[in-house]
């Protein structure tokens, strides 16, 4: 019930390239897993609230007070490619 086209579409959505061999294997894997997951349909959850957070914690804030930022050098220390104090990527065509 998940087709190869679906898998291609999801891969594009997830920004992952796939070769044909991956496509076949992934489609089979996902089919199996989704089939297993489908057992959840047996349950009647119409009156159940979803759990987004297991804690009953609410209203966690931070005061509007500045803390020192990283220096430009430290920020860029992780970069793959940099120029003029900025992170550099291949040109984006808009």
């Amino acid at each position, binding site marked *: 019930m998940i087709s190869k086209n679906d898998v291609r579409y*999801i891969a594009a*959505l997830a920004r*992952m390239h796939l070769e044909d061999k991956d496509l076949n294997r992934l489609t089979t894997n*996902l089919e199996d897993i989704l089939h297993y997951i489908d057992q959840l349909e047996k349950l009647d959850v119409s009156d*159940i609230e979803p759990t987004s957070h297991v804690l009953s914690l609410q209203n966690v804030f931070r005061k509007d007070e500045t803390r020192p930022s990283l220096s430009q050098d430290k920020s860029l220390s992780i970069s*793959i490619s940099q120029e003029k104090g900025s992170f550099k*990527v291949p040109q984006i*065509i808009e």
Partner: protein
Amino acid sequence: MILNELTAHELIDLLRKKEISSKEIYPSALNQINKTNQQVNAFVRIHNSRQEASGLEDGKFPIPIAVKDNMCIDGVETTCCSKILKGFKPPYNATVIEKIQSAGIPIIGQANMDEFAFGSSTETSAFGPTHNPWNLDCVPGGSSGGSTASVAANQAIWALGSDTGGSIRQPASFCGVVGLKPTYGRVSRYGLIAFASSLDQIGPITKDVTDAAILLGIISGYDPKDSTCVDTPVPDYTKALSQDIKGLKIGIPKEYFVEGMQEEVKEAIFEAINVMKKKGAIFKEISLPHTQYCVATYYIIATAEASSNLARYDGVQYGLRKQPSKARKNALIDMYEETRYQGFGDEAKRRIMLGTYALSSGYYDAYYLRGQKVRTLIKSDFDKAFKELDAVITPTSPTTAFKIGEKVDDPLSMYLSDICTISANLSGIPGISIPCGFSQEGLPIGLQILTKAFDEEMMLRIAYTYEQSTEWHKRKVKL
């Protein structure tokens, strides 16, 4: 005595009595690592330069620790054992790293793990599998397999792991060590490279329950940098280490004794229950009726959150960046797609795809939303149980350690090995795995104790009592 074979609390005792100096401990552990890491492959990065020999003054613990490769260490390559983070050196420390450094605990190395914590066997690491010290042909469990193997092999004295669906407890049971997943929100997640944000917790992996209590106390506590970390006081967990479990009511959920479960595991668990019964605990068979839906629910929620958490690995800022040899779409999209294609392993790709699907338009209600609702049902099973019970006991895993390569091509079968541990993450409750026996083949068996949220003291009390009534924790592996 061989120092690296001792527990942290034994070493502290010797230090206190000045029978050893702290300078002796680190080299002892390092020596063992150098001797045995080839066989075990527990470490991906050994930090043999960090020999801070602090003394015992002011709550310092100069006891070397292994840290799973998913906790950020300032200026040190941290990769989640993934190619896509190769070369990434975080410019900051995780909160738990700050805490252990403040406690004078030197990091002896970064432990191997399943890539991005996706796995139950530590076979998906970019650095090759870790081997179970009890049987090198077997997996150590996962995803914190490097952490548990290093402790079991007497390399690091203790270790930190992370647990999203059982990733501390299951490998602890496979490796015959103690593994504790705290209540969600007990330990800060700031600096833990996220897998599933609503499920992840960092926890101690140790040789015995006493060490777990000590380490838990060090890493727990409020962190203003983590909105999901609670601001409740951290008790002295070592005070919970009494041997009094008289009158405690403990539930045995029948759904955790699954069909196809290894017979020896079942026997070991029931033998353990007998030991505790002799100590006065009262056992009761209970039902946690939504148990069968745990794995399915987990694999929707965890992969959905993971697919979003892993979107940032894109070759833009840090880590790996690749371009295809032939242009496909445009330079930017090609970079994203090729980087993620080459950078992620198969299991990571699988989970990202599954998670993306579960959140995608048209499927959100059927998968993600439904999964969250079933999560409510799973949690309420425990809420009901803990109204009357002090704890719930289960096997940690339905089997002992399987062979390396055995389940790698069968993802679903791999997922099902988490069947006993996943419910605690979905419900947010704490869980501990302690050794309770060995199989005929000499592989460790683990017992899991679950208690209600923020009741780690109860969990430690029961675990300690059982442990001290047996000798399992004293058995040492011979490499």
